[in-house]
């Protein structure tokens, strides 16, 4: 490849990474924690020692929801668990949810304020917790990320073998970041390729469908998409009310079709109507594309169709791995742990990419205002998000066990935002090197502290509960990872001086006099 072309690819890779890097850092860090989403749902609730942990009664929940909200019969999802959940759409098409514990013995809905920590982390992951535009923004970011990956592959393919062993303490600090970035990028490339493609497909699905429908396939696309993505067409209500077979019969019928099926959710449509349809959806272990659906008639639980690994149309077979490869839910705890580690390494990749962009720009153009702002914003956002989520976890436990437990969801999001803004402000004022040192040490302390606060408030016996244990281990693993980065940083600084950019003063109001070279 010509040197000029290679240089263009390197520039483009840097620009694309810089444009997408901060959003991807947030998505990857929240995504790494979100690998334990189900466990976080348990962790966020006040620990109850006598909890039986058995399956809750889905039929009772279904009946209770329908008794107080008849319109939920049109479309409802039932999620099993010790405190099962029903998700349904109200008259304004807004999604609502009820837990089984939200109903009194008399069947009245008695909503109590709940923690939304796990859902908040999930929203940070897939839409940066931004309403309306967040999902589309993340879709576009994923496409740019894909372009940066293709560029990275073009740059690194010829020297891939060398870069596996390139993490050496040679030359200046920038070379070290570069080697670290290349090493992490090369090792985790397949993982990133999966995320870029599946993330873009999920985030941009509506946009892709709109443009493809307008330019390529015309009005016929809508029907084709429905057929390609849904297990069964949406039924229309007949208006004739009949008796339903019931949740137990649906689960039994589904298990008769797929004995290994683990039920993840049950979708009911037009419940109570002659045309009611029930989709018992779940997983068949031993497959990457593990999703399975058994669609049944609501009145007598007769099987309408079965879509399972090895027995489904090509579109369904192609769609299933889009989800499973993205969510890492196909190989048990080992694969989830691997995704967690690779997610944290991804954070390091985006952080180091942004640092390299800023240093490279300074080296090429001299003291540079945009480079120093980029470095400071990178430090502020990365440490702000990490510290914010740790403080959010602490707020969850402290407020849940205080007289203001009703404000727990508000306190989680409010503390995150406050810490993020404060850290960003601090990063724009303090010298980057000091910000990096104290940011890292602060985050290590916070992540080490969260399980201690949880244990202190709820009793250290709670640590033996598997879900709490797993989340606490994950939080300590974050602290340990940050401690490893801090150790590398300190060791590196002992051997070579920092790039002048790291010792710069806050950016000047105008011009490019914001740097003080050491």
């Amino acid at each position, binding site marked *: 490849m010509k040197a000029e072309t290679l240089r263009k690819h390197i520039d483009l890779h840097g620009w694309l990474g810089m444009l997408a890097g901060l959003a991807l850092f947030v998505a990857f860090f929240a995504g790494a924690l979100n690998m334990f989403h189900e466990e976080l749902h348990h962790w966020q609730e006040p620990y109850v020692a006598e909890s039986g942990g058995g399956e809750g009664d889905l039929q009772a929940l279904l009946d209770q929801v329908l008794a107080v909200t008849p319109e939920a019969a049109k479309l409802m999802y039932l999620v099993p668990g010790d405190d099962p959940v029903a998700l349904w759409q109200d008259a304004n098409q807004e999604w609502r949810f009820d837990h089984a514990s939200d109903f009194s013995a008399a069947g009245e809905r008695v909503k109590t304020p709940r923690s939304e920590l796990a859902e908040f982390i999930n929203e940070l992951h897939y839409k940066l917790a931004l309403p309306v535009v967040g999902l589309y923004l993340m879709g576009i970011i994923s*496409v*740019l990320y894909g372009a940066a990956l293709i560029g990275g592959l073009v740059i690194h393919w010829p020297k891939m073998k060398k870069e596996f062993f390139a993490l050496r303490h040679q030359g200046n600090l920038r070379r070290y970041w570069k080697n670290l970035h290349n090493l992490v990028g090369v090792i985790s490339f397949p993982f990133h390729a999966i995320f870029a493609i599946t993330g*873009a497909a999920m985030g941009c699905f509506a946009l*892709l469908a709109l443009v493809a429908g307008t330019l*390529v*396939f015309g009005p*016929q696309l809508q029907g084709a*998409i429905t057929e390609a993505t849904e297990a069964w067409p949406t039924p229309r209500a007949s208006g004739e009310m009949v008796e339903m077979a019931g949740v137990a019969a649906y689960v039994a019928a589904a298990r008769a079709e797929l004995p290994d099926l683990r039920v993840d959710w049950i979708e009911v449509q037009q419940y109570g109507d002659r045309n009611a349809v029930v989709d018992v959806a779940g997983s068949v272990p031993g497959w990457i594309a593990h999703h399975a659906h058994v669609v049944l008639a609501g009145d007598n639980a007769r099987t309408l169709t079965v879509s399972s690994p090895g027995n489904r149309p090509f*579109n369904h077979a192609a769609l299933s791995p889009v989800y499973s490869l993205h969510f890492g839910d196909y190989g048990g705890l080992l694969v989830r742990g691997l995704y967690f580690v690779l997610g944290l390494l991804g954070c390091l990749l985006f952080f180091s990419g942004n640092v390299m962009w800023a240093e490279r720009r300074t080296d090429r153009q001299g003291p540079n205002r945009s480079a120093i702002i980029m470095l400071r914003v990178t430090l502020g956002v990365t440490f702000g998000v990490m510290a914010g989520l740790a403080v959010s976890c602490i707020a969850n436990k402290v407020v849940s066990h205080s007289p203001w437990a009703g404000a727990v969801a508000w306190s989680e999001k409010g503390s995150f935002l406050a810490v993020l803004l404060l850290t960003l402000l601090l990063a724009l004022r303090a010298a980057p090197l000091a910000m990096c040192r104290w940011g890292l040490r602060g985050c290590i302390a916070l992540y080490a502290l969260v399980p201690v606060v949880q244990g202190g408030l709820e009793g250290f016996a709670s640590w033996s509960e598997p879900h709490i244990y797993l989340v606490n281990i994950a939080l300590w693993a974050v602290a340990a990872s940050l401690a490893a980065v801090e150790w590398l940083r300190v060791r590196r600084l002992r051997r070579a001086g920092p790039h002048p950019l790291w010792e710069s003063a806050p950016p000047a109001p105008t011009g490019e006099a914001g740097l003080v070279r050491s």
Partner: protein
Amino acid sequence: MRVLLGTVLGLPLALMLCGLMAAIVPVDWRQWLVLYLLLSVVLWSALIMLAALPATHGRTAVWLVATNGAAWILLQTTGLYGAAA
């Protein structure tokens, strides 16, 4: 600027190029629609990268508009749009 051009004009181009492929492949596009969408995403990313290689913004804009136009005209020669609607 070139990245922006690639992002905006690369999307229809990627979908139309994959649409042309769908018109050529002897399997009904409805049967591999999910794969079509995934391929379009990959091609869109590649086009963003290619769009940044020309020396000037103008050249990027010209070749993107020209290829979009050519792909659209070629698509009209296929029976894809609205066929069997």
